[in-house]
């Protein structure tokens, strides 16, 4: 969950605040970030926390206003391991624009400090980020009917009222509609996720029919 907060902070506060936040991360981050070390990373090492921060800043430079308003989000930064790039340290920043439903993947050359490649597409959906998991849970809680059900289930399982989405164990997966889907057909292009919700007693809510459309900010109920 740590990284979720970082990405959210990035989206809201912009780049300047992020340096301070991310410097706490190396060694603790669940994924990819290499340990904080004095020596420079070897070509095949995972990205360091500093490299992730820098790549995110460079890739997002022209996107900051959109990220501040929540129109777009930096999902995550992955090491680019294209073998044609040889030993160059490169990072792929995944940026999603919910207004135009475009995924933008910007490849940053860390030595040059610049974006060297950009790919954009509609209807391409990388896995949901931690920030998107929280956003999806907030939409679910804001839904009059489902929100009530989640709160009731949480109270029953945990013996205390739910305060925020952070009280729930969350995991989101990309939702891909089947051909001819009447309810969730828009998810061909919209950013849609399934959400798994774990309650304080370790049980999971049955959310198998629920899809959260992050582009339309809507909850969809699948029919099958």
């Amino acid at each position, binding site marked *: 969950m740590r990284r979720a907060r970082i990405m959210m902070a990035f989206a809201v506060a912009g780049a300047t605040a992020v340096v301070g936040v991310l410097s706490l991360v190396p060694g603790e981050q669940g994924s990819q970030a290499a340990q904080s070390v004095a*020596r420079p990373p070897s070509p095949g090492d995972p990205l360091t926390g500093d490299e992730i921060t820098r790549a995110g800043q460079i890739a997002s430079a022209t996107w900051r206003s959109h990220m501040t308003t929540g129109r777009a989000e930096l999902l995550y930064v992955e090491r680019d*391991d294209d073998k044609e790039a040889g030993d160059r340290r490169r990072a792929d920043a*995944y940026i999603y624009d919910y207004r135009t439903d475009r995924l933008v993947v910007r490849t940053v050359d860390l030595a040059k400090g610049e974006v060297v490649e950009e790919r954009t*597409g509609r209807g*391409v959906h990388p*896995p949901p980020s931690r920030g998107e998991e929280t956003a999806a849970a907030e939409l679910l809680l804001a839904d009059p009917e489902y929100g009530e059900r989640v709160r009731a289930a949480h109270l029953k399982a945990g013996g205390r009222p739910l305060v925020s989405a952070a009280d729930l164990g969350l995991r*989101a997966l*990309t939702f891909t509609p089947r051909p001819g889907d009447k309810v969730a057909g828009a998810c061909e292009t919209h950013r849609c996720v399934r959400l*798994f919700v774990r309650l304080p007693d370790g049980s999971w809510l049955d959310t198998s*029919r629920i899809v959260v459309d992050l582009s339309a900010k809507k909850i969809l109920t699948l029919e099958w």
Partner: protein
Amino acid sequence: MFLRLTLSCALLVTGLTGAAGATANAGAAGAAGAAGATDPARNAQAAPGSQPSCSSPYRIDKTLPNGARWRLCWEMRTIEGLTLTDVTYTPKGGETIGVLRSTALAQIHVPYDSGEPRFHDIGTIGDDAIALKAADCPGGERRNQFVCVTTRARGHGYLKSDGEGVSKSVQGTDLVVFAAFQLGWYTYLVEWAFGDDGAITPRIGATGSLSGFTTTPAHGWPVGVGSTKFEESHNHNVFWRLDFDIDGSRGDVVEQYDFTGSGTSKRKLSRTVFDEETKAVNSRMRWWRVVDSGVRNADRHPVSWEINNLASAEYRGPADEAFTRADLYVTDYRACERLASTNPTPGCGKSVDRYVADEDELTDPVVWVNVGFHHVARDEDADPMPTHWQGFRITPRDVTAKNPY
């Protein structure tokens, strides 16, 4: 010595003439073999592969009791989770050879038997890695909490009696690299075993909890007391992406072997060389290999790794899940082709069946393996559910000229 060589070459060619493309390939292989030993470019290219490109704690370097050495790098990628790169093998007393440039999971597709839901379980699984305790990594060391590097006994490497009551035997050992991921109610154990015999065993274990989805008797199995709650059956269709680079990316070719004849006393070897991107399905005696004809063992046979034992349920999904309709795919390397379905990169195909659709010429093959397990719940799957495993084998074929022990 020379005679023996000539003979074995001749036998090889004769034995293969029935197969498609065999003559041309054998000729090319012969030429490459002749050049191989003295080609300085070739030797120069081998050098980078012999040293993993990573440093501590991402570097794994293990010499097993028989002297076999495996070196590789690991990375916990946000999307694919545990990814192994720059895998090299050094047989006992032999030279180091690059095997895999990278390997990782490429999808866990989980369709339920009633038709819904249908999950593509690869999310940002690197973020779902479980911090391992010492007890979770017996006899090994944990790297950055999430990766276990250990060794494990594999039983008899061989056992042979000389007929006088004296037998020789050795015990096999594997280097094991694994991580565990909590993906919803399931825990997946993602593991690669690197054997002292040069074999690699990728496998995945599903444990944790059942989903608890209930269904009709036609799509499930009764769990709990009596026959009121039917837990829904489902598949775990697991895909691996394997970028083989045997001694560098140059010269790798994928071949399929079949043995024709059924209900007859004879079986005949049949070889198909994949020149273009393609897909293939399992057959009981079928296997594939990635071979680099420019790299020879001491017997002057081209070095290869064989892909076999795909013990798969062979799930075939509906038309919109065409990626489930083959057990093995061979694509030409493209950095953007990472997952077997729900591929995350714009300007690239969305699933592995699309990657092969344009039938590009193969110059740097990447192999995708699909192994399915049909999970019909049973009472024993009560929480915490015992692990069920699925995977396949990658075995050396003519990497060493002798028994690797």
